């Protein structure tokens, strides 16, 4: 399952880089959101670390919707989906491949969003910066696992982008909440009494939940019906 997933992920990343539209649209949308939010504050006002973290993760979320729609659309143009279902590998390898490609693209997008948040929202890295890699990876794992599953649900149906967003946002709320709280703790020193480690446990819990949901549900969702 891992090998075909890696082959698929590599192909998807190559295609999206060659097409140039998947990641660039997602990046532009995310940056636009950060910039628009930066206009919402007055001249002498400062955004709280929590507000800045919220803007960052909302941008990431919109970016994720576009990324997974682009990733699943790759298999629709010339009917590749039905022959992918015939490869000698578990069908979940498609879910995993898309999730891995999506994870790489999300991390690439966040490499742009982090400095944008620091600059446009006038934030500093004054909190627990050592948590940043762990937070990004754990939160993005959950976003990728859920995004890959819901990208498959939305593909091939009318108004797919809006459908994906509608399903996605409520499901991701606990994960986003944890990511926002931890993100705020990275941007500014968190209150001593707050147990931020518990938010990491929530992230890990939801990563496992979305991964399990992907493995179990994907074969029922991704089929050859057009």
């Amino acid at each position, binding site marked *: 399952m891992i090998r*075909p997933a890696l*082959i*698929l992920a590599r*192909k998807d990343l*190559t*295609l999206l880089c*060659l*097409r140039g539209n998947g990641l660039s649209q997602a990046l532009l949308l995310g940056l636009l959101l950060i910039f628009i939010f930066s206009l919402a504050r007055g001249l002498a006002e400062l955004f709280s670390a929590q507000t800045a973290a919220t803007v960052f993760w909302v941008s990431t979320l919109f970016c994720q919707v576009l990324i997974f729609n682009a990733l699943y659309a*790759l298999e629709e*143009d*010339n*009917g*590749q989906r*039905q*022959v*992918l*279902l*015939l*490869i*000698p*590998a578990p069908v979940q390898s498609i879910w995993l491949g898309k999730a891995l490609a999506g994870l790489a693209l999300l991390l690439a997008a966040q490499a742009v969003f982090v400095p944008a948040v620091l600059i446009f929202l006038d934030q500093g890295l004054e909190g627990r910066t050592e948590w940043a890699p762990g937070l990004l990876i754990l939160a993005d794992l959950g976003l990728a696992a859920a995004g890959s599953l819901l990208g498959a649900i939305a593909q091939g149906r009318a108004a797919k982008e809006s459908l994906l967003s509608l399903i996605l946002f409520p499901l991701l709320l606990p994960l986003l909440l944890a990511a926002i709280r931890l993100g705020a703790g990275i941007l500014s020193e968190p209150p001593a009494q707050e147990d931020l480690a518990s938010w990491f446990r929530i992230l890990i819990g939801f990563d496992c939940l979305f991964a399990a949901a992907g493995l179990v549900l994907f074969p029922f969702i991704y*089929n*050859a*019906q057009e």
Partner: protein
Amino acid sequence: MLLRLENIAKFYGERPVIRGASLELAAGRTLLLTGGNGAGKTTLLKIMAGLIRPDSGRLTLELAEGEQVGYLGHRTCIYPELSGLENLFFWARLHGLKPGRAALLELMERLGLLPFADERAGIYSRGMAQRLNLARVLLFRPALLLLDEPATGLDTRSRQTLEEEIARAGKAGAGIVWISHRPEEDAAMADEVALLENGRLSLRPAKAAA
């Protein structure tokens, strides 16, 4: 028996598309599947491939370890941004193969695609794309080859190449089901002809159809 269908039925909503279809296909045999537009040929072929689940009946595929099903549908399954050769490398790896460049180029040469091997597949004509699609299927030497109107849109030369490759696969022991709208011409390639009409499947020897 490589493929066995027993009383397969499929409905789209209330409408029966296939009613009680039964057939058997042995390795090395070619079955030509024919019928009018909307008769359900593609649906039946997808059922054989395991891509669509029948509403009732039983499908049995007897494949040995490592044997695979090759499905060639209406669409070309190519990634236009990749070269023809890169497309084949991708599908080969997904099918668990590790082919050398020379082996893939040899396959492309057989299909008349060698001069375009490193060109973006997006610039291929319909006929070239279909030949690349055929190469995708042939490269893992499927035990069961399912072809949905593979000759559509092909010129005479491409059609001839296609028929040669299908005959070669049959001689190598693949069971072949071939949907055709030209049973009179294509029956010569087949051992048996199946006519799908009003959801019912009737079989006759290819010589009777030719």
